[in-house]
């Protein structure tokens, strides 16, 4: 099977879904790039090249380069979905969701419910998240927790190229609004990805590593750090089970609870700020539903309650690290 980067896997998915269904459209800022310019159109195919080749192949009616108007992009996506299309909107950085929260959380998420079940809003909002390249406080955040809290929206946080393609395919073919978060530090991470289309279901977590002593739940880029920490902890005789939920809404609570029931210990690794986070959410779920199985306090590995700093040394200190994960695991092992 060929190895592909997450970027190429997502791009391949967009090509295949646009080919498969003429109702699929892509819209966003610079998804073609260069419109109205001597070097355009299709000068760049997205700022991270995720939409490369789509404009040339599918044309300006289906690959819509928009002005810098996030509210209009997501609002138009919601309206187009209500009218029968399957829009895939791109919000260049998830930090910009502050400019377009209303069309997600008051509009698209609620149409089906408010309208008594008669509406479908099959829209996908693809967006880039994550720190690690000194993009500072307004281009580095991971805000999936507050979008996860919205009833009516699904959220995907793929950690690898295989899941990225399969989850995006599920999202585009599904009937519900989806927030799809791409970690910018994982775009070049490669793994085996089939050439043909396939789906990865929402709500099914991935047990990336079996173990008996500690359950580590981690999201997106943190899955890789968790597995690296688990590798090194073997030498200390500590056996970690690592769970990648893959989607935060729906969340595979069953997989997490079953694992904690066996290991009796839980460490959650989340790149988001600690308050009202996926880390605190999962801690709450486990504390309220599996308290009797716990042999140690739940540990959360998160950034501090601060914005994301620019200076590389500060950003490094902000982010959860392999060493911090190891320390927390060691602590829960000592708690006995």
């Amino acid at each position, binding site marked *: 099977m060929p190895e592909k980067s997450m970027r190429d896997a997502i791009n391949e998915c967009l090509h295949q879904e646009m080919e498969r269904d003429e109702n699929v*459209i892509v819209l966003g800022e610079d998804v073609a790039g260069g419109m109205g310019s001597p070097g355009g159109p299709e000068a760049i195919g997205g700022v991270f090249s995720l939409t490369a080749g789509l404009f040339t192949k599918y044309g300006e*009616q*289906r690959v*819509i380069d*928009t*002005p810098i*108007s996030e*509210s*209009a*992009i*997501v*609002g*138009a*996506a*919601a*309206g*187009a*979905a*209500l*009218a*029968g*299309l399957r*829009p895939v909107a791109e919000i260049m950085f998830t930090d910009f969701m502050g400019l377009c929260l*209303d*069309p997600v959380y*008051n*509009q698209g998420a*609620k*149409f*089906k*419910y*408010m*309208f*008594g*079940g*008669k*509406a*479908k809003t099959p829209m996908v909002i693809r967006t880039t998240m994550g720190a690690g390249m000194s993009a500072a406080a307004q281009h580095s955040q991971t805000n999936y927790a507050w979008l996860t809290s919205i*009833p*009516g929206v*699904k959220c995907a946080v793929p950690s690898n190229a295989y899941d990225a393609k399969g989850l995006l395919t599920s999202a585009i073919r*599904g*009937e*519900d609004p989806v927030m799809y978060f791409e970690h910018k530090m994982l775009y070049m991470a490669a793994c085996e990805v089939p050439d043909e289309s396939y789906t990865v279901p929402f*709500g099914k977590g991935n047990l990336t590593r079996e173990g008996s002593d500690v359950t580590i739940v981690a999201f997106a880029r943190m899955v890789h750090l968790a597995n690296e920490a688990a590798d090194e902890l073997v030498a200390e005789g500590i056996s970690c089970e690592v769970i990648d939920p893959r989607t935060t809404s*729906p969340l595979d609570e069953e997989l997490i609870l079953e694992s904690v029931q066996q290991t009796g210990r839980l460490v959650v690794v989340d790149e988001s700020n600690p308050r009202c986070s996926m880390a605190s959410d999962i801690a709450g779920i486990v504390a309220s539903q599996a308290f009797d199985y716990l042999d140690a306090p739940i540990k959360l590995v998160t950034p501090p309650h601060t914005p994301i700093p620019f200076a590389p040394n500060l950003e490094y200190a902000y982010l959860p690290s392999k060493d911090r994960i190891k320390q927390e695991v060691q602590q829960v092992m000592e708690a006995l």
Partner: protein
Amino acid sequence: MQLSRDELLRAYRQMKIIREFEERLHIEIGRGEIPGFTHLYSGQEACAVGVCENLEIDDKMVSTHRGHGHCIAKGCDVKGMMKEIYGKDGGLCNGKGGSMHIADLDQGMLGANGIVGGGPPLAVGAAIAERNRGTGRVAVSFGGDGSINQGTVFEAMNLAVVLKAPVIFVIENNHYSEHTHYSYAVGSGDIVGRTKAFGMPVFEADGSDFFAVYDAMKEAVDRGRAGEGPSALYLPIVRFYGHVEGDPQNYRGPDETKKNRETMDCLPKFRQRVTEAALLTNEDLDKIDEEVLALIDEAVAEASAAPLPPMEMLYTDVYNEY
């Protein structure tokens, strides 16, 4: 513009249904029969009907928090709407939306909207869908002097012009955004100039004159269907009630509403026009008045008697699959 007898009768009936629907709601709300926030459309009927009589069932429309008139004009079932506003089982949205969230996708009505400025971007999206399918259909976005200060509206107008999307932005200036006069809230005071600046034509009409609204809308719709891009309609008008039921309206001048009802009422204006031109008779219109009153009586009686939504409705229709 030459409307047939049947078209004129229909237009009057639609305006009269909206008026009596709202006047009756005002009474029933006063009796404590209806939960929630209700924003009445009385006084603005010629805007909704003048616009929607130019539309086909498959044309799309998005509305506002003051949406009952738009919904009726677009073809939503009056009895289903009344049940919805009462929060009852069998309401158009099963009692889960209420006054501010009435929708009927089968009628091309993509929803009233509780967020001022929430609708116009949706209309652009619906227009993209129609454009891509080559249907010649249009998407209409209702809004007012309040929404004309929202960034979402500016973004939607610009995007529609950039994409040449067949959207018609209908701006009903009822003079008050909630409780604040537009002369304060619209910086330049010039809603038409502001809208034209986005690069689309603005067709103006007296919002209390059905015929003027109808003609203005026809120009906009023709442009949209011909693929010439978006337009706007500017309709100065008054509302006969407050922003929301319960509004003390102490921001109004003395006798303001009384004067408005005397000079800006679309129904007697329509009646005078069609009877003087001998297009319809007073008897024709009186008959409609009676029928409409009976319809509203029935709608209220049925809504009042309808059962509450079953408890399981709390949990249904969040997702298609979860």
